[in-house]
């Protein structure tokens, strides 16, 4: 929660107390009232004000009617809510869990239709044709609540029912009960419970309003809403007969709402904190869970001459004037934890400085300090100067001076505005208006000025788009950001910076998740910008990119500068051990294809696969044929969207192919994994790109991993747990770590656990789908080394999907290159890595063309 949230925690608690108090009165009356009501007294005169609350329209005692009248409202609403849940939740879960589209439609379409009718109309309509009575009312209100309950259940269950965790369970044929109830129901439980309060409010509203309109209950029933309706005529004579039941109904509604709102808020807050803790533990930088308000950093004024502390190996400082960026002794801490300690560097105009380091080393914090920004709760100290001006969160740089390209450029683009409109807006802000004539412009002159201004803006936009290699035609300018490719989005953000006449550009991991062709474009683009006089600060762990473009290098480790200097020197001869480790991406010689002559372990023949997008089918694999030898390793490479992952999923049985065969040891495998025999299922295992969502959050990692042995090797639970512990130990996870739930493990640890889970099935083939993307160099190398070791130890055939040349070089003995669903080149890794024929292969795999300089090509 944001810091201001803390301030109104007291009113929130007060609100809850008021809610409980308001709720208590009508509930108490509803529950205890009938017992206190006593026998009916003889009727008096209508609307007689005598007695506690007087009499009603037929002369009955209002107090007695009030005591009796709560039961029906509360009871009917409760029963209706319960009934709606009893029917709606199973329906919604069924629709979510089924993999048959028609069943989903069959369940949900009629319910959607029901939703299209306004609820009160539906209620009146139903009540008009059904016999009166509380049971009817319960049924009707339940029917009205049903579609919403089913929809919410379905929506809550859908991501669980088809997500990676479910697929992982299907890979070891988890029992239906554990998948549906243990995973999906447990996972959506909280959403459904929290929603029950909202549904109850809705039911209460409907029941009361229906009774008021005289629908569904007898006209003389003892019911608060009926009383309000019937005694309305006496509002002047005997207001209590209306106001008391009305006030009780209002108290009931407001009370339930206040309490439910509080419970929902608590749930959201708990979820938010969980997510923040999760993010903190994963990235090492606990930006989000920092308590305390945003405090502008107290900064010590430093003389220009004062040297920044703790940077022994700092580069020689260029003269002040040439420096676009100058950072001296920058500290950052959050909640007592140090993110940056005495970081100093300078960047001259026309220079590319790379800040490199592992994830969580403080690169982003340093980069954002240049923008005069700090994450919530982050305190900065030290001196940051941009273009000769001191910059801090209190005094950000002048607009436009520092451009920022975030890791996900799409986040910086407004999803609902056309890109041309935004470009023109930025250009208008930064294009100097024509000088006005002092005598006050005549209308004609003003109009002419507007026209020239508009054309100047348009020209500026076109010029900048040409500089970043984007089209500038009308069709393109009318697009929305989501209609651009990732590379185009990134260039568009750069175009914004150029239009704003930025002098410094901070690029945060611009190549993460991009294929190598796009990566090459990024390198080219950054170089061009620097050559045009921009000071570029590159935050990256992509060493190829750094080698290709950086003039100077600052290596960060745990927030401190461990090495700095000209890029070529640092890369060629790193002095610090930590730098060496970071740079040590040297591929080991791949295992010789020992058994090339043997029959292949896995053979894929003429595989065709399609994705369905709405009604249309898009073919993503067009007749792919390849094979993996026993103990061999096949790397599948290609640009994003070339069909690599679909190929892997077809082999694993997660995606049913439209044609072709997948054969294991000469036998064909069934297309979907549900139809494979248990032995076949165990023989082909799949490790997901992102390990975290492939575990479900409710049980310990050990328990989840051990289920693979229970289901696929039929081991009794205790022995399965022992086997799992051994497998997890083999991948380097200690017993106390694996006893935790997945949210307490880091991404790298979970990826190890996922490997252990695959191994536990004793497979012949393991498919690794981009398992190192998103990891920094050091973590990546550890995982690659582990995979290599496991494969030798267990004699596995590997299929590795990757666009990382280093991974391919290190593991693969055979490579296939996919483009638009077809194999464009295949052959031994040694040949393709250095002497490929196809230009795409060369672009993807050849070191000289992915941007590595001559200084540090891959060592043999």
């Amino acid at each position, binding site marked *: 929660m944001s810091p201001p949230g803390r301030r109104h925690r007291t009113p929130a608690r007060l609100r809850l107390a008021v809610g409980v108090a308001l709720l208590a009165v009508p509930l108490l009356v509803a529950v205890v009232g009938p017992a206190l009501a006593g026998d009916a007294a003889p009727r008096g005169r209508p609307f007689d004000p005598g007695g506690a609350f007087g009499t009603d329209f037929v002369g009955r005692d209002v107090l007695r009617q009030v005591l009796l009248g709560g039961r029906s409202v509360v009871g009917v609403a409760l029963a209706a809510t319960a009934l709606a849940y009893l029917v709606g939740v199973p329906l919604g879960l069924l629709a979510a869990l089924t993999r048959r589209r028609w069943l989903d439609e069959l369940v949900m379409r009629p319910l959607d*239709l029901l939703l299209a009718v306004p609820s009160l109309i539906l209620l009146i*309509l139903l009540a008009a044709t059904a016999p009166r009575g509380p049971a009817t009312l319960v049924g009707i209100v339940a029917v009205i609540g049903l579609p919403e309950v089913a929809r919410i259940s379905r929506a809550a269950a859908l991501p669980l029912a088809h997500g990676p965790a479910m697929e992982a369970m299907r890979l070891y044929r988890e029992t239906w009960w554990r998948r549906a109830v243990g995973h999906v129901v447990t996972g959506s439980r909280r959403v459904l419970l929290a929603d029950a309060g909202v549904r109850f409010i809705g039911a209460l509203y409907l029941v009361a309003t229906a009774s008021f309109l005289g629908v569904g209950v007898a006209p003389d029933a003892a019911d608060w*809403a009926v009383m309000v309706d019937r005694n309305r005529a006496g509002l002047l004579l005997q207001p209590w007969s209306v106001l008391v039941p009305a006030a009780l109904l209002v108290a009931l*509604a407001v009370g339930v709402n206040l309490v439910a709102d509080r419970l929902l808020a608590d749930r959201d807050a708990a979820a938010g904190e969980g997510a923040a803790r999760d993010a903190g533990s994963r990235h090492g930088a606990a930006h989000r869970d920092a308590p305390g308000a945003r405090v502008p950093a107290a900064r010590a004024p430093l003389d220009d001459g004062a040297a920044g502390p703790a940077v022994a190996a700092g580069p020689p400082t260029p003269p002040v004037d040439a420096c676009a960026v100058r950072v001296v002794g920058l500290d950052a801490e959050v909640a007592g934890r140090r993110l940056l300690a005495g970081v100093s560097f300078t960047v001259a105009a026309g220079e590319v400085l790379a800040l490199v380091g592992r994830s969580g080393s403080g690169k982003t914090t340093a980069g954002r300090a240049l923008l005069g920004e700090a994450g919530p709760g982050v305190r900065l100290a030290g001196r940051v100067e941009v273009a000769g001006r001191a910059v801090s969160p209190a005094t950000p740089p002048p607009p436009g001076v520092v451009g920022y390209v975030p890791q996900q450029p799409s986040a910086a683009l*407004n999803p609902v505005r056309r890109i041309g409109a935004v470009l023109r807006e930025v250009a208008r802000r930064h294009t100097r208006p024509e000088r006005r004539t002092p005598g006050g412009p005549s209308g004609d002159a003003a109009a002419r000025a507007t026209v020239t201004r508009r054309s100047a803006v348009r020209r500026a936009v076109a010029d900048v788009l040409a500089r970043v290699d984007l089209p500038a035609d009308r069709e393109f300018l009318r697009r*929305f950001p989501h209609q651009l490719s990732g590379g185009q989005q990134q260039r568009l953000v750069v175009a914004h910076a150029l239009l704003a006449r930025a002098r410094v550009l901070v690029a945060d991991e611009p190549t993460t998740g991009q294929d190598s062709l796009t990566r090459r474009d990024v390198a080219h683009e950054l170089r061009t910008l620097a050559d045009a006089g921009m000071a570029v600060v590159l935050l990256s762990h992509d060493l190829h990119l750094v080698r290709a473009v950086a003039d100077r290098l600052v290596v960060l480790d745990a927030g401190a500068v461990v090495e700095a200097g000209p890029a070529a020197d640092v890369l060629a001869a790193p002095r610090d051990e930590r730098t060496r480790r970071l740079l040590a991406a040297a591929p080991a010689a791949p295992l010789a294809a020992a058994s090339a002559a043997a029959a292949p372990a896995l053979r894929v023949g003429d595989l065709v696969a399609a994705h369905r997008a709405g009604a249309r089918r898009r073919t993503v694999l067009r007749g792919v044929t390849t094979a993996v030898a026993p103990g061999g390793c096949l790397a599948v490479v290609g640009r994003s969207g070339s069909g690599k992952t679909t190929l892997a999923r077809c082999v694993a049985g997660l995606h049913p192919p439209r044609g072709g065969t997948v054969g294991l040891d000469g036998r064909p495998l069934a297309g979907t994994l549900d139809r494979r025999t248990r032995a076949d299922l165990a023989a082909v295992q799949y490790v997901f790109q992102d390990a975290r969502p492939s575990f479900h959050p409710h049980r310990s990692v050990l328990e989840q991993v051990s289920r693979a042995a229970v289901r696929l090797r039929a081991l009794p639970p205790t022995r399965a747990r022992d086997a799992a512990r051994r497998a997890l130990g083999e991948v380097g996870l200690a017993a106390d770590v694996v006893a935790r739930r997945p949210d307490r493990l880091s991404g790298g640890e979970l990826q190890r656990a996922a490997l252990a889970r695959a191994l536990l099935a004793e497979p012949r083939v393991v498919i690794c789908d981009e398992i190192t993307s998103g990891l920094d160099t050091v973590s990546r190398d550890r995982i690659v080394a582990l995979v290599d070791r496991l494969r030798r130890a267990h004699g596995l055939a590997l299929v590795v999907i990757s666009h990382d040349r280093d991974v391919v070089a290190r593991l693969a003995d055979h490579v296939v290159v996919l483009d638009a669903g077809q194999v464009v080149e295949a052959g031994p890794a040694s040949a393709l890595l250095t002497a490929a024929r196809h230009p795409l292969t060369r672009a993807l795999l050849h070191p000289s063309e992915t941007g590595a300089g001559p200084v540090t090509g891959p060592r043999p």
Partner: protein
Amino acid sequence: MSLPRYAARRALVGAGQVVGVATVVFVLTEALPGDAAVVIAGDQPDPARIALLRDQLDLDRPAWQRYLDWLADLASGDLGVSLVSQRPVAGVLAAGAAPTVLLAAATLLLLVPLSVGLGMLAARREGGRLDRALSATAVGLYAVPEFALALLLVAVFGIRLAWLPPTAVGTGGDLLSRPAVLALPLVVLLARPFCSLSRLTRAGMIEAMRAEHVAHARRLGVPERRLRLVHALPNALAPVAQQLARTTDWLLGGVIVVEAVFVVPGLGTALVDAVTARDVPTVQGLCVLVAVTTVTVNLAADLVAFRLAPRVGAAA
């Protein structure tokens, strides 16, 4: 997908929904098991009246034939003849439409600027006094049934303080002849939708102002006012537009209640009367009218949302 294509597809779905709802209405009112005439005749099963009903509703013909005829008549705008007044249903609806449309239109006209404006103001200073006041009101009022709120307001402002007329009796359906009559009904109708819309606007604005693209625009020198109105607001409005469509559901229900409490001779009153009198053709006509309105409003909201959140539309 382009907007016209999306609109065409969405309109087709809407037409299907109208037919579906019409079918539901028909099934519920006429094709129930048992003899519809006996059910409609109700508590006093007078054989002569039953015979008359059978004749008027054509109950001797099979249900599916009646259904097809009814649909064909609907398509040509013929809603049948009221069983009670023997006047054409279309005329009955036209007579009651004026006050109802006035109430609904006035509510919407006030609702959108009021809730969006206050929601934006509350979002400007999260946790500020206005924000807290608005949030407390919204949470409190949200769940109060209209009739209870209406009667409490009538008791206080209409009778005890006598500031405002407690009912619309005497205006004869022409509410504009005494505009003061509108005050209390409008407050009642506004209460619930205002709560949900202002909270949604507030939440949407807070989220949008925290988005990276707004920070990006700020770094580029876009002034704060423009950031809010041009960059953040359109992002915040997509869920508001959808909720506004759902609000018509409440509004239609609210109008029925408000008309009952304030004695306004509008469509809501006509519906309640028709249901009490089991005037099947009138009930059918009203329900179809309501369904068409709801579907149209939802269609419009989806189109607005498609423009405001093009990605969502593309994914759907």
